[in-house]
C-alpha cells in the first residue's frame, strides 16, 4: 500500500511542501492528508488544492506530475520512501536523516543539502549545490548517499563532511569546494576549480581534468577501496567500465592552502 499524490493544479508561484514526507503523512488517512497545509507563496493552502490523494497509512509515497515549482519535499525525512515520477523543485530532501527518495526526472537546486543519512537517487539531471551546505553553514552533508545519473551543476558537495555523492554525467565548477571529508565520484567531465579549499576526502573522476595550482601530483596507483565503490555503482546501472574498476588512477593531493590531506583521483587511461 502506498500514498499516491498526483498534481492536478500547477502552482503559479513556488509551493513549499515540507509536509510531503513519510514522517508527516505515514500515519494519516486520505482525508487527513488532503487537509494538510502547504504554503503557496505567502498563503496557506492544503494538499488537496494541488494534489489528488489516494491511499493512506503508508510510509511509501508516490508523487506524480511536474513538481518543478514545488520545494522542500521530504525535508527532514527519517524513514520510508518517496518515488517521484517527474521533475521536482529545489531543496528536495533537505537535512534528511533516513529513508530513500527516487526521482525519475530532473531536480532543482539544493538537492539534499546538509543531509545526515539516507539515500537519494536521481535518474535525470540535478541543479546547483547538490549535497551542499546552506550559505553561512560550516558543513554540508554529514552522511548518506546521493546518486545522480545525469549531470549536476556547480558546487557539488560544497563543504561536505562525510557520505558519498556520485554524478553519472558531468559536474559543474567547484566540485567538492571546501570539502571536509567524504567521497565524490564523477563519471563525466569535471568543471573548473575542483576541490578548491579541500581539506580531506576524495574526488574521483573518470576523465582528465586541469586542476588548481595548489594541487600536487603524487603517483599513479590502483586504489583498492575504489573497486568496492565502482562495483556497487555498476550494480546501480551507472556506466562503469571493467577497466575502470581494475584501473590505474593519478593521485593529486591538496589543497595545499588547507591541510593538503585531500585527494583527487583521475582515471589514467
Amino acid at each position, binding site marked *: 500500500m502506498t500514498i499516491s499524490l498526483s*498534481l*492536478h*493544479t*500547477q*502552482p*503559479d*508561484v*513556488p509551493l*513549499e511542501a515540507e509536509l510531503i514526507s513519510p514522517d508527516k503523512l505515514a500515519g494519516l488517512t486520505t482525508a487527513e492528508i488532503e487537509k494538510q497545509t502547504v*504554503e*503557496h*507563496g*505567502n*498563503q*496557506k*493552502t492544503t494538499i488537496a*488544492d*494541488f494534489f489528488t490523494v489516494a491511499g493512506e497509512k503508508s510510509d511509501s509515497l508516490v508523487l506524480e506530475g511536474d513538481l518543478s*515549482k514545488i520545494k522542500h519535499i521530504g525535508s527532514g525525512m527519517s524513514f520510508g520512501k518517496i518515488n517521484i515520477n517527474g521533475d521536482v523543485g*529545489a531543496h528536495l530532501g533537505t537535512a534528511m536523516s533516513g529513508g530513500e527518495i527516487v526521482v525519475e526526472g530532473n531536480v532543482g*537546486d*539544493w538537492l539534499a543539502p546538509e543531509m545526515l543519512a539516507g539515500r537519494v537517487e536521481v535518474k535525470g539531471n540535478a541543479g*546547483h*549545490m547538490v549535497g551542499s551546505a*546552506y*550559505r*553561512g553553514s560550516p558543513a554540508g552533508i554529514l552522511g548518506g548517499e546521493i546518486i545522480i545519473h545525469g549531470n549536476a551543476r556547480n558546487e557539488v558537495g560544497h563543504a561536505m563532511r562525510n557520505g558519498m555523492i556520485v554524478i553519472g554525467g558531468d559536474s559543474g*565548477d*567547484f566540485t567538492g*569546494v*571546501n570539502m571536509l571529508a567524504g567521497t565524490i565520484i564523477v563519471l563525466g567531465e569535471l568543471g*573548473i*576549480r575542483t576541490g*578548491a579549499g579541500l581539506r580531506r576526502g576524495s574526488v574521483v573522476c573518470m576523465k582528465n581534468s586541469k586542476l*588548481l*595550482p*595548489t594541487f600536487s601530483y603524487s603517483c599513479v596507483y590502483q586504489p583498492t577501496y575504489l573497486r568496492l565503490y565502482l562495483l556497487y555503482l555498476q550494480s546501480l546501472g551507472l556506466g562503469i567500465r571493467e577497466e575502470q574498476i581494475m584501473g590505474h588512477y593519478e593521485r593529486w593531493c591538496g589543497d*595545499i*592552502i588547507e591541510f593538503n590531506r585531500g585527494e583527487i583521483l583521475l582515471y589514467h587511461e
Partner: protein
Amino acid sequence: MSENIKIVKNATCTFCGCVCDDMELTVDLDKKQIIKAKNACVLGRAWFAEHTIQEGPVALIDGKESKLEDAIEEAAQTLTKAKFPITYGLSDTTCEAQRQAVAITDFIRGTIDTTTSVCHGPSGLAFQGVGESTMTLGEVKNRADFVMYWGGNPAESHPRHFTRYSVTPKGMFTPNGKKDRTVVLVDVRRTASTPVADIFLQVKPGKDFELAWAMRALVKGHTVDASIEEETGISLEVLTDLVERMKNCNYGVLFMGMGLTMTRGRHFNSGAIMALATDLNEFTHFVAKPVRGHGNVTGADNVVSWQTGYPFGVNFSKGYPRFNPGEFTTVDTLSRGDADAALIIASDPAANFPQAAINHLHKIPVVSFDTKETATSQLAHVAFRTSTYGINTGGTAYRMDDVPITLRPAFESPFPSDEEILTALKKRVHELVIAKSRSQGAGTAKVAAPIR
C-alpha cells in the same frame, strides 16, 4: 543667470559609492538647477547638472495620470493580493526610504532584494563564508602603504577614489602621498586606471581565482609550479616579488571590483581575495573591501541587514526572514517566473536585466518609483515620480566603507520623496493586511490557476 542663487557647502554627491561629502554647489533657485558643482568629478558634475525638474504627473496607473492617493491605493491593493511579491532596487534612495521598503515587504510577506545581488552580492556571500578584515577609507588614507585594485577601473567608475582616499592623499602615516604607497592593479586589460599603478598585472580573463589561489599558497610559504605563468599570464617571479612586498608592507588594502564578482566563480573569486587578506594578517595588517557602485547600495545592505539579519535576497513568505541567494534574488526569481508582483524602487531592471527576467516583468503587475521616466516605469502598472535623493531630498547614505553620511539637498522638488510615498504605502498596506487576516480567520486562500 538669475539673482536667486544659493550656495550649498559640504553637500554630498550620491552618484557612486564614494559618496563624496565635500561638494560646494551653486544652485539657481529660479531655474531649479545646479549650475556649478565645485570639487565634483566628471561623473558627479554630470549627476548634478542632469538632475533638473522635469514636468510630469506624480503618479500613473497603466500609463494614465492619476491622483497620488489613488495610485497609493492601487499599489497597496496590488501588493497585498500577490502571493510571491518581490521588492527590488533601493540602491539609489535614502536609508530612511529603504527602511520603509523593508517594512512593506515584511507586511506583504514578500521577498526583498537590492541591486547588491547583481553587483557585489557575491562578495556579501563570501564575507559570510570566509569573514572580512575591514576598515574605513579614512584609515586607508592615513595608513595604507600598499594598495591593490583587483578587477576594477576606479579612474573611470569612481574618479575620486584615488585622489580622495587611496592613492594620492597625504595622511598621518603617509605624509608623501603616492610616494609612500605601492599601487598594484590587477585587470584583464589596460584601462584608464593602469597609469596610476606602480605594478600592473594583466591576468588572463577568467583566471582571477587561480591567481589569487596561487598567491595564497605563496603567502603560506608553499611552492607554486612555474606553469602558473601559462595558466594566468603572470610569471612566478612577479608573483613571488609581489607577495614579498605584501608581506613586508605596514598596512595593505585589497579593493575588489566587479571584475571578480560578475565573472565565472563569483563569490569564490571575492572569497579568495578576502581569504588572501586573512592569510596576510599573519605577517602584517591587511584589509579587503569591495568597491561599491551605486550611491547608497552600501546603505541598502546595511538597512536590510539591520532589519532582517541578512543583506539581500531575503524572503518573508513564512513570516520570518530567510536568506538564500539564487533562490530569492531578483534575476533568478523573475527568470524562473516565480514572482507574481514587483515593487521596484529607484532602479531600472527593465533596461538591464536578462531578457527572461524582463519578459516576466511584462507579465506581472509592477509598482515603480523613479525620478524620471524609465523602461521600468513604462511597463509599470503603477508608476510614481519622486524627487532625487541628495539633490532634492535629505536623509542618510552609506559610503562604500559603511560610514553613514548626511545628505544636504540643494533645492526643492515638486515631487514627493521615495520615503514619503513609501510611508503612505506602508500605512495602507498594513491596514489591508490586518483587514485581510481578520476576514480570513485561520487563513484560507484562493486556489491557484488550473494546470495549463
